Each structure stands twice: as C-alpha cells, then as structure tokens.
C-alpha cells in the first residue's frame, strides 16, 4: 500500500502529462467545436497538474485561473456565438491532413533520433532538482513559491512585466475595436 502510493506520488507528472496529451488529442480529433473546447479545458487543467508536480504551485494555480477561468470560457463563448448558425460545415479536416500528419510523425521520429541519447540514454540520469539553490536569494523555492516568483517578476523582470501590461491594454483596446459592430 505504502509503496503503491509512493509510486503514484513519484509519477504524478507522467500521469498528468499523459492525461494532458489525451485531452489535446481529443481536442484536435473531435468534430464538434464544443467538444474541442472541452478537450482543451481538460488539457489545460492537466497541465496545471503538471506544474504542481514540478512544484511550481503559483504557476499551476495561475494556469487554472487564467486558462480555465478566463481563456477557455472566452473560447466557449465565441464557439457558442458562432455555432448558433445552422449552416453545415463542409469538413472538419483539411485536404492535406494526411500529409501533415505524416510530416509531423516524421519530424517526431527525427526529433527522437536526434535526442535519443538525451531522452533515453544514461547520459543525463540525474533527477530534476535544485542544482543552484543559492539563486533563490534566501527564499525556500519549494516552500515559498509565490514569494519567489513575485521576487523574480517584480525585481528582476520588472520591465517585461510593465511591457506586458501595456500589451494587454493594447490587446484590450484592439479587441474592442475589432469586435465592435458598425451601428453601435
């Protein structure tokens, strides 16, 4: 029992990762757009789980909050707006899908071939851990993740953060202008 639970705990990342892959595959393969959104939502939640398994708690929660709480709802909203028309879709997939899938699979095989040693070899067997804990500037990254991230965000990368806020503002205004109807 003990051993079983420990095994699950150790492989949490793999479990969430495989589930995320399943959700993503469902998203690409399903014919109804709403089902696609559901698959996307599932994939996002599982990726949040992956973040948690990597001990990035703040990022995991931000993932749930931003993606599941905001972005996917917007997608669903637009899908429901757009799907209200009764016009039948011609086909879900493109004509070149077969070639595209083959090409991607080839790319995957090539990737695995090139990085075979890195991924499966014994060249880099050490577990993913904190190699240079002194960079966390006196904070225990595992215990005070949110504080550590905030230090990174507001001390080291303040300028990108500010630029991001400007980008968000521009995107907001742009979205309003684009989606506005003429008569309003």
């Amino acid at each position, binding site marked *: 029992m003990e051993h079983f639970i420990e095994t699950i705990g150790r492989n949490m990342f793999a479990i969430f990762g495989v589930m995320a892959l399943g959700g993503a595959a469902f998203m690409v393969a399903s014919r109804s757009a*709403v*089902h696609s959104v559901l698959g996307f939502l599932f994939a996002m939640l599982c990726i949040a789980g992956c973040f948690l398994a990597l001990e990035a708690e703040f990022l995991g929660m931000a993932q749930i909050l931003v993606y599941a709480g905001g972005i996917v709802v917007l997608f669903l909203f637009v899908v429901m707006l757009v799907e209200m028309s009764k016009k039948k879709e011609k086909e879900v997939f493109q004509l070149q899908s077969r070639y595209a899938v083959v090409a991607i699979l080839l790319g995957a095989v090539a990737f695995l071939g090139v990085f075979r040693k890195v991924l499966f070899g014994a060249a880099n067997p050490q577990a993913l851990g904190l190699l240079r804990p002194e960079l966390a500037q006196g904070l225990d990254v595992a215990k005070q993740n949110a504080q550590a991230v905030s230090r990174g965000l507001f001390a080291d990368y303040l300028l990108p953060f500010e630029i991001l806020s400007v980008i968000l503002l521009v995107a907001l205004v742009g979205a309003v202008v684009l989606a506005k109807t003429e008569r309003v």
Partner: protein
Amino acid sequence: MPIPTLTQSIVITLIQCLLVVIFVFVVVPLTVFAERKVLGYLQQRLGSTRVASGHVGVTGWMNRGMWKWGRVPVLSYWRGIPGLVADVLKLILKEDVIPAKADKFVFFIAPAISMVSAVVVFAAVSFVPGVFFTFPKWFPYLGGLPVSGGIADINVGLLWILGVASVGVYGIVLAGWASNSKYPLLGGLRSAAQMVSYEVPLAISLLAPVVLSASLNFGEMSARMAVGLPFWGLVPQILGFLIYLTCGFAETNRLPFDMPEAENELVAGFHTEYSGMKFGFFYLAEYINMTVVAALAAGFFLGGPWLLPFGLQGLVNPFLPAFLKWFGEPHAIFFVVKIIFLLFTYIWVRGTIPRYRYDQVMSVAWKYLIPMALVNLLLAALVRCFA
C-alpha cells in the same frame, strides 16, 4: 506528537474530506429550508408550514392533530421541516429526462462539473488554524494522530479557491449549450458573460486582504486579518467587504443578479431541460457555492474562527456562558456561526432587492465595482505602507 505514515495521512485526509462533505450536506438542506421560511417572514408570510397534503399520510395526521389540539399552529416554525426529506426524495425519485436532440455527453457532464467544482473549493478552506482534534489513543490505526483544521492548507489556497470556483462556469454554460434549446442557451451565454465580468472585481477585492496579510494561505490570511487589524479587518476593509459580497451574489447567480435562470424571461434558464438528480446537482451546487462565498467572506472579513479581535476576548470572557468558553478562542464553531449569518444575509438580500436588468448587471460590474475595487486595493496598500 507521532508523525503519520503516508497511508495514515491519506486516511486522515479522507476523514477530513468526509467531515467537509457532511458539513456541506447538513448546511445545504437546512439553507434550502431556511430560505423558504426566512423569505416568508421577510414578506410577512409564514413560509412552508406543511408537507404535501395536510390531510393525507403521517404529516397530515400530525397536522390535523395539532389543529385539533389547540386551533393554533403550535409548531408553525417547524411544521415544514419534513419538506427537507420530501425535497430530496422527489429529486432522487424523479424520472431523468434527456432531450432527444441534446448532446448526451456534455448534457451528462455539465451538472457533474458544477457539483465537483463547488465541493472541491473546500479543500483550501481551513476552519481552524492548527490542529482541529486529535484521535484518542485507543482509536484503531489512527490513535494519537492530529487532524488539522483544513484539508489542504496550501500556500496558494486563495488562488486555488478562485481558480476552481471559476471552473464552475462551465457547468452552467455547457448545460445551456447541451440542452439544444433556446432559453437554456441564452441563459448559458448570459451567465458566461456575467461570471467572467464579476470574477474581476471579486479577485481584486480579495487582493486587498492578500496585501494586508502578505500571504495567500487561507488560514494565515484569516488569522492575520482577525488578530492584526481592528475588528477583524472589517473596518479598514468595509468597502472591500461590500464589493466582495456583491460579486459573491453575482458569482453564485443569486438574486439580485439572477441572470442565468431569470424565471420571468428565460423559463428556468440554463436548467430548463434538466430533471431528476441532474437538476438536483445544479440546485445543490448553487447552495454549496453560497456556502463557499460565505466561508470566504467570514474568513477574510469577519475574522473566521476568532470570536473577537485583539484581546477583547478576555474582556468579554467573564460574561460568556460556560459552554462558549469551553470552545476556546479560535474554534470552528465561531466560523460556522459567521457562515450561517452570511447565508441569512443572502436570503435577506434576495427577499429585499428586485432583479437587475442585464445591461445594469454589466454596467454595475465594469463601471462601478471594478474602479471601486481598485481604489480599495490602493487603500489597502496605503494601510500596509504606513501601518
């Protein structure tokens, strides 16, 4: 204090989950009953005073007996209580109708999403700081082990609560879409827009306690707000409290922000096509969400498990009845009492304020609540800076 093994700690967590589920499923039916009675009293009625026919069956016999007895509704407060059981039985026994053109999978999964996201939020709510109780020594397997006051007292508890609560939108939106019917779709679209809008001021108003307490952990936040600030932080955060309550009403789709299921425009909104226990899940989820919002408000603005702020507890202690003193200073009972008061406030507001129009709902969120919440956040930052 013995350190639990992995399996033991998981068993303890399961016990905590069971306790929370029991709490939820005790509070929710009582809230449903209280809603009927309190709404009645607010409108000078009596609320529900009998179950089914007053003349058939056991309850009918009881009713007749009471009337024969004194011609006065002796238990006029409580005669509706069998309605609790009757409600649940009705929901369980009803036929579960699925519309022929509905999307079966999504139709099935929507109430589940609603329910799960409502219950799971409680994982990060800590009812008491520290140890809730300790298993006695004779207890098999778990003897002598402590049980903490929250299931998962994680560092990013507030974010967890906000994130999972926001997943609850999908239940409503997907239910509206999957029913393949006009009114549910309109209700779902409305609620998507409404809940996304209200999440913004809600989150910003909760940021003020975060700033004041410098933590994202539920227990820590409630403790610091309760002990470190005057009157559980209610006085410096009165604006934030009001904004939070308003957004909480909107997030749980309660009147006066009852857009998704506007009875007079949309039949029953997103759950028009639902029946049986699937509808019951939506019904339960609404009340559980109310409890969650009340728990957050009680924890952050009303001091959570702390009876009185500062050292005032010591001043009041001599005048308290003995059983209250027995509970000690931070105790879950105070938290629960505050939650119940806030649930009463929900019903009170519902019985008082009429429903907003849809455009009014949106303009309240974007034009008033968000700027006010930002101002409140600024105030909190100033307080933190200079105090």
